[in-house]
């Protein structure tokens, strides 16, 4: 009951925040953190069960580009475009993941097949540059001022609330899976697929369900990012670098706890911003350098991530002192 109360208080405080404090720069950072937290949470939904996907940059790219292409070329409102984009990402996930799971492609091999997927999406975006603007990026056509139908708002507070809602929704899905039978099935599968199958778990179906949920959510994150930033390019929403970035942030925060990816997003985005503001253009590269070193150190010394290790330490300080 206490945790529920804490959640309620925390969420209320977050909703109330922009009305009390409306510095546009800080709000902008917070919207970015919320959107990326949602993306990282989506990744960790499958990542926590050992399904390490390096294809989520692809799903994110599909989300952002399908939504924007539909709006610019066919005039379809993002309210319809986003669900269509999510369906596309889900279908893509099905097409790639079904054979993967059916033929028992796991571990390294799964990571590399999904890596190929994000490579394909990236190259297709660049190759169809007549429509997508290629590597130069792409901008959704602007309406004048805020427009609900076009999902474009000048007011950062609106975006903050949307991002907050979506982020909270992502956490809700995380908890829903955490409490469902799927979680036990998936944990059994990640330990030993044969044993799980022998115990009556439909291995392929369970893995597929988790993968599709994760892909669809990631596409939503991509679409929202595009609508908020009003600029998407293959480097920022798609491709292998984005996929790796997702995995890293989630791992740094901790993939086995609900708020881990959020902590990861806060740390990585704040780090990048602090370095950018502190060093200006001289900081180019430094954020990723610190980030990469942190990641290596984390995987060696704190494989549960910051939040995961902290929670384990709070629960029983003696046992987990060394992380």
């Amino acid at each position: 009951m206490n945790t529920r109360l804490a959640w309620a208080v925390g969420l209320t405080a977050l909703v109330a925040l922009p009305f009390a404090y409306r510095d546009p720069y800080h709000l902008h950072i917070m919207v970015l953190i919320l959107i990326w937290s949602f993306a990282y949470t989506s990744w960790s939904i499958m990542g926590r069960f050992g399904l390490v996907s390096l294809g989520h940059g692809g799903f994110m790219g599909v989300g952002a580009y399908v939504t924007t292409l539909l709006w610019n070329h066919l005039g379809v409102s993002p309210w319809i475009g986003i669900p269509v984009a999510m369906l596309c990402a889900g279908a893509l996930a099905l097409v790639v993941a079904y054979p993967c799971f059916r033929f028992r492609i796991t571990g390294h091999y799964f990571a590399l097949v999904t890596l190929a997927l994000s490579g394909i999406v990236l190259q297709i975006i660049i190759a169809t540059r007549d429509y997508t603007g290629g590597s130069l990026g792409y901008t959704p056509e602007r309406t004048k001022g805020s427009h609900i139908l076009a999902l474009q708002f000048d007011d950062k507070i609106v975006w903050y609330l949307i991002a907050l809602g979506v982020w909270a929704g992502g956490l809700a899905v995380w908890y829903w899976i955490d409490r469902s039978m799927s979680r036990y099935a998936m944990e059994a599968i990640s330990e030993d697929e044969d044993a799980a199958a022998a115990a009556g778990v439909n291995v392929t179906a369970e893995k597929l369900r988790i993968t599709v949920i994760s892909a669809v959510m990631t596409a939503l994150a991509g679409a929202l990012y595009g609508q908020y930033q009003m600029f998407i390019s293959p480097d920022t929403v798609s491709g292998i670098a984005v996929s790796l970035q997702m995995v890293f942030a989630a791992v740094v925060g901790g993939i086995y706890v609900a708020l881990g990816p959020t902590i990861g997003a806060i740390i990585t985005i704040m780090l990048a911003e602090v370095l950018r503001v502190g060093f200006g253009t001289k900081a180019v590269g430094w954020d990723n350098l610190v980030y990469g070193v942190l990641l290596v150190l984390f995987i060696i010394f704190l494989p549960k991530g910051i939040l995961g290790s902290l929670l384990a330490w709070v629960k029983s300080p003696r046992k987990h002192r060394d992380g």
Partner: protein
Amino acid sequence: MEIFDIYLLEALVNGILLGGVLALLALGLNLIFGVIDVTWICYAELVMIGMYGMYYLFSVYHLPYWVAAPLCILLVAALGAALHFLVIEPLLGAPPINQLLATGGVLFVLQSFATVAFGIDFRNLGIRLPVLALGEMHFSYARLLAFGAALVGMVAVYLFMTRTYTGTAIRAIAQDRQIMALMGVDTKKIYLITSALGGGLAGLAACLLVLQYDVHPFVGLSFGPITFLICVLGGLGNFVGGFVAAFLFAEIISLGGLFSDLEWGYVLAFAFFIVMMFVRPAGLLAKRS
């Protein structure tokens, strides 16, 4: 139709030439995987550092190419050994996916190190090798040289693996990790040597690629993913499979690029990879179980 055939032939031959370098890259990665059972996601970034090494040795310190190249190979070999010693060694007992991610972290470190240290400008050696005209077809000497050197490198590795004691020990460890330690082989030392060898191959690839491509901190992303896909397609750790897969991939990219943009060549190659994973999940040359 006549002209078309010549282009086709030219693309075919260029595919073979590209395949040589890709095969060299895949060999290094396969070696590491086959022996140590770790995938270096940052392999292409080692090549990138090697390319910068070449740039500085050749263009800034004005060493002749033939002196700079061995130095550069040694440098990347040392880097490979350091990578193993600092990152992989502490993680040998960890789940494979942690090892994969840790080398992914190294990828970010190397990329951003290059950004910080060398800037994001495109640089090249400023060597323009002549173009070989054969009838109506044109091949650049840089590619021919790369192909030749890659073949020589691969033969050298093959001889090392089959004719020397250390090479035999490396192959033995690839077959059975536990037993070899009992046979008196120092596993740690062999791992370190293998990593240095893998790094050295990356260094050789760097010396060859720098003749054809400009170097910039993100150059690794343009051929890194392809190298992994080639290794997986051939069966991770399967040297012959990797060799065959490299040429297949290179042909697909080259021919795909002939009919449309180069990007579609890559799309085709990636799609081919995914389809092949379902047809032959354990690699092109795997025996059916």
